[in-house]
């Protein structure tokens, strides 16, 4: 396969077949607690996508231009999490300053994002898999979009379930996990779509 297409393949793989949420279980905490409403899910999904795409690229730059030359790779956990936290803080400040509407729509989700495992997870995966800069960016973006699709689908299903009769012990998180399981199975069905050969 020509190298040009590799980022594209990774992009689609991250959205569908190897959805960061449904196959790696990353970002579960906010996924389960926020997915009750469609609107809030959309807000969080967009925020996650944006932060994922940017921080993955940012962390790539810091890792390869600062940490590797100085042989400080073992500090990557601290550095990545601080970059993510700082970036989220920055975005919060910028949004607050320039767009009140956006701040009310997304602002409340931003603190949740720092501790979203998917963000740090994508950065760690990209290092371990030795992606190039472009591939990393597409991987981050794809993971974010995949997460967005998963939480939107979940919120839609959960809204429909509001009037359903669910066994009391399974209500809430239990049924959400069952749905996530079925979604994971459905997403596995995309397997044949992308061929890396």
């Amino acid at each position: 396969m020509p190298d040009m297409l590799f980022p594209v393949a990774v992009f689609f793989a991250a959205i569908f077949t190897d959805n960061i949420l449904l196959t790696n279980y990353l970002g579960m905490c906010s996924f389960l607690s926020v997915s009750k409403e469609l609107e809030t899910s959309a807000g969080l999904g967009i925020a996650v996508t944006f932060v994922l795409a940017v921080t993955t690229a940012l962390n790539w730059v810091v890792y390869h231009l600062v940490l590797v030359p100085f042989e400080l790779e073992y500090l990557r956990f601290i550095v990545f999490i601080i970059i993510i936290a700082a970036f989220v803080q920055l975005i919060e400040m910028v949004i607050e300053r320039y767009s009140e509407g956006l701040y009310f729509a997304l602002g409340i989700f931003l603190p949740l994002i720092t501790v979203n495992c998917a963000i740090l997870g994508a950065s760690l995966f990209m290092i371990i898999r030795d992606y190039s800069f472009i591939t990393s960016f597409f991987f981050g973006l794809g993971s974010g979009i995949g997460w967005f699709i998963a939480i939107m689908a979940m919120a839609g299903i959960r809204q429909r379930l509001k009037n359903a009769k669910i066994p009391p012990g399974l209500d809430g998180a239990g049924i959400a996990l069952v749905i996530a399981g079925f979604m994971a199975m459905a997403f596995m069905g995309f397997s044949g779509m992308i061929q890396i050969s």
Partner: protein
Amino acid sequence: MAAGMKKKTFLAPLGKDNPVFVQILGICSTLAVTNKLENTMVMVLGVMFTIALSSWTLSLVRKWIPSRIRMMVETMVIATYVIIVDISLKAFYPEMWKQLGPYVGLIITNCIVMGRVEAFALQNKPTLSLIDGLASGMGYGYVLLSIAFVRELLGTGSLWGFKILGSWWTNWSIMVMPPGGFFMLAIFIWIVHESFLKKGKEEEHA
């Protein structure tokens, strides 16, 4: 009095305040490796180590932490312990380190660690925080280990890498695949909610 407090602190996260069942916290970093018992054990030990020691450390310095940079300090301390786990695994248990890959690093974003520090360690004495951390880690650990037990047994017919079930057993592949983890966790939560959490509610009413 003090001993009673310690015992209570120790027991609560194992039973009715179990972080996984009650709050569904912190499953992100570990659920992915629950398709093998051995990997799960190492991850759980790593999480226990991190929670216990970061609770202890932050509780020691809790009076001096400026509230504005509280989160940064917490993250820093947690990340340091996680790096210690990572480096130790890399040096002394490299095969496991290779298998766990990025998941060790993800302990940093495990909500339980940060959650226990915020909710308990910053208000309590170091020893008590250490006990709370250990107990939360264990409460979290036994849930994931039971999930891993069922998944590895049904999915591959083996436990800890050793074949347990004979050749008559057809591997239930879905169990080791991602959906299996979701279903197992859902079933566990269901069982627990139906049985002892409900009992707890009845006691409260009585």
